[in-house]
């Protein structure tokens, strides 16, 4: 009997496993393998070059800039989007006027395609005519700024778009968690004379631990993956100011067709993801209380 259920289980698992292995595990390993070979060009087949592709990356200033940009991008979008998401969830969960309208407003960016979002924000950021410059001129009398055309502001402009896009999605998870907290917990604390801030820090936040971990995992992955708007809005420019690891993979692999270097760069990206996974696993095990 036990044997039969095992056979059943394997039969049910095999289609999904086959596809997972073909398009996740195999390519992850094949990327490492191919990163040790040169790019085949014309009649010249790929040959083994060892660490040469990695050495080329190490000498490539654009790679280092993309890596630094990506760290800045991840380390700003993650806390900003999570913080905003939590704040939004607390607002639309409480007694606020027009709760439903606010909920829709916060969530709307999530259902818009990133490409549509990019078009809308291009318009927003247009120097002089764009809404942002019009507002700043009216309020502070500022002159026109080329937000996405200047190296100082371009990455910041991309970060704002990413946070705007993500926060509402994370809000849903916090909202779901908040509604699962028994109201009598907070009522009891309020009767005991605890302030709202104290209730938040001592009761609500600890109970949101598992949600925060879940959201954090998603935010970290998005910190490396969410690049659609950059490809459309700046193509990594100006002067590589908004180049991230994944946009550079795209550029190397599908604009210059230098698949060997693109593979090496993908390995770097995979290592970054593996590292964050390991850190989250270690921290998460200790700090989060699952039921």
């Amino acid at each position: 009997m036990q044997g039969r259920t095992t056979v059943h289980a394997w039969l049910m698992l095999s289609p999904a496993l086959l596809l997972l292995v073909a398009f996740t595990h195999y390519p992850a390993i094949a990327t490492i393998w191919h990163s040790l070979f040169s790019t085949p060009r014309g009649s010249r087949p790929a040959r083994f070059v060892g660490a040469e592709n990695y050495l080329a990356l190490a000498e490539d200033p654009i790679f280092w800039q993309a890596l630094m940009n990506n760290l800045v991008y991840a380390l700003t979008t993650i806390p900003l989007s999570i913080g905003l998401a939590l704040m939004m969830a607390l607002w639309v969960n409480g007694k606020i006027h027009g709760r439903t309208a606010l909920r829709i407003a916060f969530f709307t960016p999530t259902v818009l395609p990133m490409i549509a979002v990019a078009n809308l924000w291009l318009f927003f950021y247009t120097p002089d005519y764009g809404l942002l410059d019009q507002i700043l001129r009216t309020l502070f009398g500022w002159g026109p700024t080329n937000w996405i055309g200047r190296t100082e502001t371009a990455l910041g402009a991309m970060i704002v778009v990413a946070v705007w896009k993500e926060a509402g999605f994370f809000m849903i998870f916090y909202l779901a968690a908040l509604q699962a907290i028994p109201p009598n917990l907070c009522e009891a604390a309020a009767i005991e004379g605890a302030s709202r801030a104290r209730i938040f820090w001592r009761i609500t936040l600890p109970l949101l631990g598992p949600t925060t971990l879940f959201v954090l995992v998603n935010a970290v992955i998005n910190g490396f993956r969410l690049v659609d708007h950059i490809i459309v809005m700046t193509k990594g420019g100006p002067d590589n100011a908004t180049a991230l690891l994944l946009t550079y993979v795209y550029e190397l692999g599908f604009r210059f067709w230098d698949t060997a270097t693109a593979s090496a760069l993908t390995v770097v990206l995979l290592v970054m993801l593996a590292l964050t996974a390991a850190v989250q696993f270690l921290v998460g095990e200790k700090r989060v209380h699952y039921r």
Partner: protein
Amino acid sequence: MIGRVGNAFEHAAAWLLGLLWVAPLLYAIWAAVHPQGYSVRFDLFAPLTLENFAAAWDAAPFARYFLNTFVLVTMVLVAQFVLCTLAAFAFARSEFRGSGLLFGLVLLQLMIMPDVLLVENYRSMRALGLVDTILAIGLPYMASAFGIFLLRQTFKQIPRELEEAARVEGCGTMAILLRVYVPLAKPTYLAYGLTSVSYHWNNFLWPLVITNTVETRPLTVGLSVFASTDQGIDWAIISAATLMTSAPLLLGFLMFQRQFVQSFMRAGIR
């Protein structure tokens, strides 16, 4: 007194943020329904027009793009439901040697998403002769770790007694899955289905890489091709095209807003 002022301040902040969040969309709507000259000039009495939508529709094969996206989204959703249900059921209800390790290997996909493996997946698709097909856009996403994880959690919460009762009545494993587990997991299917549809409706980078003709391009790639070619600064038409491509999903969300949020809550993703 301080509480009252603080409350009013908080309300104002919430509303300001909400306004900020819909501003780009409102701006696009404004630009799309007025003649081109009004894109950067606000006038309450500006004439309304639908010409921008007509112009955008004529400027690119949007009907074909809509069809491609529709085929893609449906195909991925059906495949995900079938594959993830089977796998999740096996993980939830059969303890066999190595099932824990296997589940861990599945969850790897949560971290290493297909989006990151562009170069290698492109190589595989070329080897399979699938470059520039709609199947190739969907294939890497059909076995979804997120879906398997979500459904496994839901299936595990279903009391075993129900399964045993069905077994006593002579149901086989497949019948139990279809008659007991799947109906009870409806909220999870709804939540996951909505997430999946919006993800694949909006997905861009992989479709951009793997497609190169009108016959296969989904809306997102079509829109980017449209907006980047010589349309230049004609914001009115770009706004109209942008709204057009996002409209079905946006309307769907507005209609199902309540169910969407609730299904997430019931699905127990916390």
